[in-house]
């Protein structure tokens, strides 16, 4: 078939041009630190005396900003240090060249706004230091002049030190001495000259230029020259067959952070590695450089598709974060003083950041609790976008569903096998010759019919739109981008071109706001022909992937406006998703919430949709690593994360596929996906037993959708992650600090998926001394603060509900989440040992911005104490009507009541039927039938029960039948009904 040929062609290309080995990642395609000249230069610096000295007499302090010059005593180049105290217990440290010969890149569009500053004040000052107050809690910032260092202290305790190991290094911009005339005459150079002149005429006075002239001669001791010319790779660098022209020369930056008392650090995704970051003393540093890595390797600090330069530290005492706002290639070294090293007995973790260009701009989030760090980071970069409910349901994807008939048949297959799903996905083959925004005229001749067919089933579709644009004068999108001059440029000023799926492709410059606005407009229904409101978008390959580029990405000397690709690289993917997501909002006139999946990401990408862990493989190790990979993303704001269920490459065994569905059902983004060369693997192709197991896993997901939805609402409002490492909720339990085979959803569900082949049991750690956990399937109670062995069968998904929580489920599983919108809720009230529980219920229309724009939602607090369960309005100013009601209340871990009654908002009390089983202790209250929107209380009465027990035969109770029921200790419904039958027959 056509597909076969084209794909084979592509793969032949991939195989021969790029990937010599087809078996696993070809590491030689990607740089090591040694092969990245700035990383090598920087890593050669060893800790010791810093050449930097703070010039305390240059101090300038306004209300919220302190500036100070730093001088490098070796080359006399001056830097400008800016310090800010930010609202919410954060400190911002910026370091730039005082007088760069041209501006250095400062990352735009990542912070949601200018952070709100708070007053800084000087507490004391002497010849060599300066003490600033950071507000309450005795927090101080100490600036030491020589050598320059910053210490943040609280009382007597040092929380964090900057440049304490003297690894601040700032490669100042310089003119290339040997080929100066050549440089100036080059296109880029002259462009820079003009920019520089604009810049200097705006902001620089004669005085400063004078100063510059004055300073240069003072550094005639030759050290500059030595430093500038000696190191290789400063002005040009080659990797494999690619060369990087580096017209601006060396520009890297570095800074070290010491964290006394800290042994556990997390974050800086994306790496296929453990949740807890490892020491990199004997390996390469963790690398942050968005790359399309073919068949990536596990447990490796190599860069992957996305980058979030945020590191979280945690100890029993305090949780903190470091946000290194830089979009260039970045390497992070981690080392620790374990007790055996001579220097000190106290544990300490050292973190060193190195970036290729830009400035040092760091946000230090001081916690102190995990939740505080999440709030602090959210205040800077925003929170997770609130997805439409359906996006939290199950997604069925494959590269590729062949044609409209195939889509229809798969859709039908889900109905025939009674498995719910909300989205079916179309990969690159759906477009006409990989021209995104179009449809293959033979395979998808009538996309609207297809979309309408899905809409009739209340289902949706996602089509891929990648940022590489086929260079083809017959392609409207290409022609418009070219005529509007929206393509990224190559170093010589022409449109940058590279190879990707369609062959020769251009790359739109998403850093350009005009380009993004145009791109967004292309999603309008009249622009994107064949699209409809139930079609959503997937942005893949946005690292960007360039098959024939260095490290399968764009040349660093490509040009985005006035900046080099080097400066903006890690930001490209964020911009693609941002523009696409804005397009989806605009096409609905601002009404509908968008859903866009991206592979590449950066800090702030959480605002635009979901991410997945890229092209994994059908291997048990990849199933396992999906947990720490998504946990790491959650810690740095990106909650909407998932891994390809089943594994993208290779063919999963039925057991692996089932286990992956079971795990995926409890991860935020739940999508099955498969490579085009793998055999089909729709859930019903592995025999009826496995179909039933997969069906059950998916159904468990749908039952819990109200909980997922509420957690995403919460994440959207507060920045708290949806999927959390145990330590986030149990920050003092050291045993949890390295756990990565289980996790919490919100704070109330603990999941320990089975991720081992042939497993007959798992050992789960249940945290919390004095707490209890209930197995959500058997409702058996287990004590916290223990490791529990759980025997498993193929149907087991070990999940526990925290005693003290209330979780709302919808237990009528239908074809899609939309079909379940008006269904009733069942409340699972899991009591803690004190007989208390609480939870929330959030309802809105599940897909528009009306919850935000016109406060159309229901948000209720459910709390159980003193034997009554109450629903209370958490948002009295919001309004929404729902047809949903409460069909069942399950109280776990309590004792048998004598009666249960409902008290409605107007005070009317009525009895409710119930049943109780004592082992495990489960009370099921039948049909309270109250609206989910209403105020109500359900009261369990025990006093009367005791009365009954004491005085058998006493009739006067709430209901005439209750005495029959409670004369028997182990009554159940059937006995109850027998009695009642007798009664009614009488």
């Amino acid at each position: 078939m056509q597909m076969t040929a084209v794909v084979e062609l592509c793969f032949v290309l991939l195989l021969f041009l790029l990937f010599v080995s087809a078996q696993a990642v070809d590491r030689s395609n990607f740089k090591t630190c040694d092969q990245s000249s700035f990383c090598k230069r920087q890593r050669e610096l060893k800790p010791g005396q810093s050449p930097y000295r703070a010039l305390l007499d240059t101090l300038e302090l306004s209300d919220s900003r302190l500036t100070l010059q730093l001088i490098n005593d070796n080359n006399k180049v001056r830097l400008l240090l800016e310090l800010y105290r930010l609202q919410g217990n954060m400190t911002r440290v910026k370091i730039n060249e005082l007088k760069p010969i041209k501006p250095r890149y400062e990352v735009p569009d990542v912070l949601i706004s200018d952070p709100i500053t708070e007053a800084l004040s000087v507490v004391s000052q002497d010849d060599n230091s300066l003490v600033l107050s950071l507000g309450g809690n005795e927090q101080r910032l100490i600036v030491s002049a020589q050598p320059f260092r910053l210490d943040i202290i609280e009382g007597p305790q040092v929380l964090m030190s900057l440049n304490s190991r003297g690894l601040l290094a700032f490669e100042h911009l310089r003119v290339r001495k040997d080929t100066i005339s050549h440089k100036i005459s080059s296109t880029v150079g002259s462009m820079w000259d003009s920019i520089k002149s604009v810049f200097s005429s705006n902001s620089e006075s004669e005085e400063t230029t004078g100063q510059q002239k004055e300073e240069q001669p003072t550094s005639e001791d030759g050290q500059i020259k030595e430093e500038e010319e000696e190191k290789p790779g400063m002005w040009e660098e080659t990797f494999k067959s690619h060369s990087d022209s580096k017209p601006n020369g060396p520009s890297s930056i570095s800074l070290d952070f010491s964290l006394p008392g800290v042994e556990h650090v997390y974050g800086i995704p994306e790496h296929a590695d453990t949740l807890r970051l490892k020491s990199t003393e004997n390996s390469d540093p963790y690398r942050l450089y968005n790359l399309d890595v073919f068949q990536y390797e596990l447990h490796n600090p190599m860069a992957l598709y996305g980058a979030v330069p945020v590191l979280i530290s945690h100890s029993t005492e305090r949780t903190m974060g470091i946000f290194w706002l830089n979009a260039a290639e970045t390497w992070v070294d981690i080392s620790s003083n374990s007790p055996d090293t001579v220097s000190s007995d106290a544990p300490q973790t050292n973190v060193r950041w190195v970036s290729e260009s830009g400035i040092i701009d760091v946000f230090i989030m001081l916690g102190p609790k995990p939740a505080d760090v999440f709030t602090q980071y959210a205040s800077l970069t925003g929170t997770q976008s609130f997805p439409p409910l359906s996006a939290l349901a199950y997604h069925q994807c494959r590269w590729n569903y062949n044609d409209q008939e195939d889509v229809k048949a798969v859709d039908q297959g889900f109905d025939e096998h009674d498995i719910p799903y909300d989205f079916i996905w179309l990969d690159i083959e759906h477009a006409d010759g990989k021209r995104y925004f179009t449809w293959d005229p033979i395979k998808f001749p009538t996309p609207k019919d297809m979309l309408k067919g899905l809409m009739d089933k209340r289902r949706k579709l996602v089509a891929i739109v990648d940022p590489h644009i086929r260079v083809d004068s017959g392609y409207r999108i290409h022609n418009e981008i070219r005529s509007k001059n929206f393509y990224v440029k190559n170093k010589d000023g022409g449109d940058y071109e590279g190879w990707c799926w369609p062959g020769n492709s251009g790359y739109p410059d998403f850093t350009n706001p005009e380009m993004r606005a145009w791109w967004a407009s292309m999603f309008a229904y009249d622009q994107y022909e064949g699209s409809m409101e139930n079609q959503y978008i997937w942005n893949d390959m946005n690292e960007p992937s360039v098959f024939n580029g260095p490290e399968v990405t764009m040349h660093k000397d490509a040009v985005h406006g006035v900046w080099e690709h080097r400066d903006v690289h890690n930001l490209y993917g964020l911009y693609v998703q941002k523009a696409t997501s804005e397009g989806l909002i605009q096409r609905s006139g601002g009404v509908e919430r968008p859903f866009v999946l991206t592979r590449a990401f950066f800090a702030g990408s959480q605002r635009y949709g979901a991410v997945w862990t890229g092209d994994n493989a059908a291997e048990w190790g990849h199933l396992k690593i999906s947990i720490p990979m998504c946990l790491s993303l959650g810690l740095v704001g990106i909650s909407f994360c998932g891994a390809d269920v089943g594994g993208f490459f290779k063919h999963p065994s039925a057991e692996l596929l089932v286990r992956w569905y079971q795990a995926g059902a409890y991860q935020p983004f739940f999508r099955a996906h498969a490579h085009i060369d793998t055999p089909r693997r729709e859930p019903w192709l592995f025999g009826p037993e496995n179909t039933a197991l997969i069906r059950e896993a998916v159904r468990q997901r749908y039952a819990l959708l109200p909980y997922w939805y509420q957690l995403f609402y919460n994440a959207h409002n507060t920045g708290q992650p949806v999927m959390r490492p145990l330590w986030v909720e149990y920050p003092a339990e050291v045993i949890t600090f390295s756990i990565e085979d289980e996790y919490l959803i919100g704070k109330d569900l603990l999941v320990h998926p089975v991720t081992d082949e042939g497993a007959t049991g798992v050992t789960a750690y249940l945290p919390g001394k004095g707490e209890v956990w209930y197995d959500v399937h058997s409702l058996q109670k287990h004590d916290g603060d223990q490791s529990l062995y759980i025997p498993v069968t193929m149907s087991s998904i070990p999940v526990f509900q925290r005693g003290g929580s209330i979780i709302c489920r919808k237990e009528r599983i239908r074809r899609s989440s939309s079909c379940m919108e008006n269904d009733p809720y069942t409340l699972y009230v899991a009591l803690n040992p004190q007989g208390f529980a609480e939870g929330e219920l959030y309802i809105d229309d599940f897909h528009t911005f009306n919850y935000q724009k016109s406060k159309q939602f229901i948000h209720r607090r459910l709390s159980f104490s003193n034997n009554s369960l109450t629903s209370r309005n958490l948002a009295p100013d919001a309004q929404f009507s729902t047809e949903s009601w409460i069909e069942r209340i399950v109280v776990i871990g309590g004792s048998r009541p004598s009666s249960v009654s409902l008290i409605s908002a107007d005070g009317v009390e009525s009895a409710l039927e119930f049943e109780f089983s004592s082992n495990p202790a489960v009370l099921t209250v039948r049909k309270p039938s109250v609206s989910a929107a209403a105020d109500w209380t359900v009261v369990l009465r025990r006093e009367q029960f005791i009365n009954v027990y004491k005085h058998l035969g006493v009739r006067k109770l709430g209901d005439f039948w209750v005495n029959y029921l409670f004369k028997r200790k182990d009554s159940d419904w059937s006995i109850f009904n027998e009695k009642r039958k007798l009664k009614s027959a009488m």
Partner: protein
Amino acid sequence: MPTRHLKDGVNVYQTAGKKCKFFKLFRSRASSGTQCLFLHLGIMTCVHLLLTLVFAVSLGTPVEVHRPRGVPLSKKPFYEENKPFTCLDGSKTILFDQVNDDYCDCKDGSDEPGTAACPNGKFHCTNAGYKPTFIPSSRINDGICDCCDTTDEYNSGAKCENTCKELGRKEREVLQKMAEITKEGFLLKQQLIEEAKKGRGEKQSKVTEMQDNKKQLEEKVEALRTVKETAEQPEREAKERHLKAWEEQKAAIRLVKDKAKMAEAFLELDDNADGLVSVSELQSHAELDSDTDGTLSEAEAKGLMGGVEQVDTATFESVWENIKDKYHSESQPEEPAPVETPVDEVKEPVVDNESEPYPEDISEEEDEDDDDDDEYHEEDEKAPPTMKTPEKSQEDEEAMPPYEADTQVLIEAAQKARDDFEEAEKALREMDDQIRNIEKELSFDFGPNAEFTYLYSQCYELSTSEYIYRLCPFNRVSQKPKFGGSETNLGTWGSWSGPENNKYLSMKYEHGTGCWQGPNRSTTVKLTCGKETMLTSTSEPSRCEYLMEFITPAVCQEPSNIDLSAHGHTEL
């Protein structure tokens, strides 16, 4: 309450009347005083209920037999009005009011056949005018029209139209058409079976006949073999004589040449022209070095000289024996020795059959496999000629003289005997092939009545926008690009692969060309009844796994009149 609820007022089951009786969603067995409390959803609900009531009353009693919603007629006896209901699995007995009250009481879901309350419930659509069916109860009121009589969407607001009549009509049309096709197809199938029977008989008798012929041929071959061997004996002897004479002649020539060379070498070595070759004179020829250290030491030279300091022309003869293999003439130092080696080999004239690089059977096979464009195969075939060329160039001027006339006569006689023999042998082989082919054909499973026989050795093509697909039943499936490019093998005949009850509904072709990082291509051919025999569609549902649809009368079942009337039955 939205008006959309109005049209759904037909709740066919009516219980003794309390004012909220129709609204099953919130019915409870609790006292009447609490009942409306349960309808706490508000006034809206009650308005809805009242309207529903009015609507239902105005419609009058429905024609259908009273039974709870979603219960099939066959199960009606289990749902006795106003009597306690026992779950169909016997697990529990509940009040009748709790049937279809939108709360799941029975583990088997039997108390809620008409609501979505039970996870495992089944809802029965009567679908008057079409086929009655069960749907999962989760599809009740989910906003999607599942039952053609619209009864599954009684409270969701979905705008469903009753399409049962239309569906029934369409189905009857299809069935009618199918019946016609089946009827005609089945007639054709009978013919096919007849033809197959006939053909099979013919083939069997042909095989028998050929077996007889084969015997005769074998005898003939044996006879000719004897003739050939008899004729080859004198030929071989004559040839050997000739060869021997030539060998002797060659040896004499070689001796003379060697002597001349020796003399030449002596003159060359005798640098000082004193008529003697000395050790030092010999040492100038480093190539004679025996311990391969690059130089000819004095001791080595002396060794070659037979231990003496110098030799004259006579004694040089023994020295020459020691050095002639390595000796480089100074006049032509570039010329390497190997030219001489082939001289020692017996050069056979290329008449002999055994040196023929293309044995006939191979080339025949290739002819048969002509459509198989396996490239490796081709390369193998092409390889030998290039290897043969150097042999030819090695022939030197010393070619063997032609045979004498009487030898030539013997050769020609033997050649004729050989030709006759080979011809007979070839005929025998062909005969064998033919028998084998027919036997192979006879061994195929052509269906219970050999109705698929006619597909054998046929090919059917289907052209798509890009490819021409070719199905040769019981042989192979292939795909050829329309606009250039080589053919791809999508599988060769494997087996019948239909369902257990009729394996003849599908064919499997396997082991086609391999896919990159994937399996070998394979094709499943689904057979359906048709008047004609043709390929109707092809697809690739999974990578490298193809699916073809093929119609043929051979799968047409005997038409049964019961079929149509059976459908008639279900219409009420």
